[in-house]
């Protein structure tokens, strides 16, 4: 399978426009740096392989979420070590946000770190639901990605938020 120039361009634009999805999935599913690099390469590889099947019927973000979550959920740490020299330019870099003051950034950064830590303590499927919900996807979109019904998504999300709230006790309240 060799990608056409169009698919090549699409892959590039997906990385430009939806790189945040990859970053969030990686941070939620792989806490250790070595694992993160491993998972990142697996996600990129799976996205690359899935590209020819993309028929533009699905939204690119839905498609990317599916590929990334399917890969992350069934990814086995350490079993798919990739060459470390692969795509060094594709490393996830943290750039400062220009929308908040330094103090706010520190506070938000700490909260975000706690949030990620709490998410990583959740069962894998809850992690997926929380991630999709925090990204503001509707029940319909989450149902499209997971293959569950909207009602089922509602129940699963309530359960996942409850579990997240338990792990975030002392940091937040009223999450349900």
């Amino acid at each position, binding site marked *: 399978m060799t990608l056409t120039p169009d698919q090549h361009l699409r892959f590039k634009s997906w990385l430009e426009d939806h790189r945040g999805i990859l970053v969030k999935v990686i941070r939620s599913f792989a806490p250790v740096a070595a694992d993160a690099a491993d998972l990142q390469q697996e996600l990129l590889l799976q996205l690359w392989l899935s590209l020819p099947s993309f028929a533009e019927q699905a939204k690119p973000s839905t498609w990317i979420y599916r590929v990334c979550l399917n890969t992350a959920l069934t990814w086995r740490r350490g079993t798919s070590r990739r060459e470390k020299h692969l795509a060094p330019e594709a490393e996830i870099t943290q750039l400062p946000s220009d929308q908040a003051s330094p103090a706010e950034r520190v506070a938000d950064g700490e909260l975000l770190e706690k949030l990620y830590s709490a998410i990583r303590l959740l069962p894998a499927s809850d992690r997926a639901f929380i991630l999709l919900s925090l990204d503001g996807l509707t029940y319909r979109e989450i149902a499209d990605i997971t293959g569950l019904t909207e009602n*089922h998504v509602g129940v699963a999300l309530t*359960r996942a938020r409850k579990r997240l709230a338990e792990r975030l006790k002392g940091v937040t309240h009223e999450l349900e």
Partner: protein
Amino acid sequence: MNWNDLEAVWKHQELPAGACADVAMLKNAFESKRRQLAMALAVRDWAEASAGILVAAVYARIGWAIGRDAWPMVTAIIVILMVTVFFVRERIRSRRKRLGAHSPLLEKLNADIAELDHQRDLLLNLWRWYLGPITFAMAIFTLTLLRVAIIRLPPELWATLLQQPLIWALLIITGTGIGFLLWFAWVINRKAVQKRIEPRLEELRKLQRELIGSP
């Protein structure tokens, strides 16, 4: 702090700047990986298929040299070829049924579990579709050779041969060796089921239970 605040922090988290991935480099790396994988799969498929074809060809050649008396060997050849066809059909079926990573999570999980379950059943029932037919074919082949030898060799020669301890030793060693190989194939496949397939199946089932929310 409530859910909306968390959502706001989440949405404003620092993310990497646009596309800094070298797509050309990714392309080269993935293409070479894909080629390696495709080559490994092709070698495995051909090795499995050609082993059966080779054995069938050897049986056919020996049968041809013996002539009409070797007619039962046709059954052995058919059985060996059937095992080969089964192998190839399984590979094709497995590839066709595999869902891409872009499928909905539950659908993909269900398909992966069904496939792994099928692989487990195949390995646990190795005698039914692989070792059994192979043993049956080898038995037919050996008995046919023996029958032809009884018909064609003079009785005095038989009497002399059967008095040679070396002949008996060879027969016992060959029989034991074949028996050991079959047992070994059965054991390593069972071990593969216990050590690799069942733990993975359990992981996927746990994930499935979590996803659909059953206890």
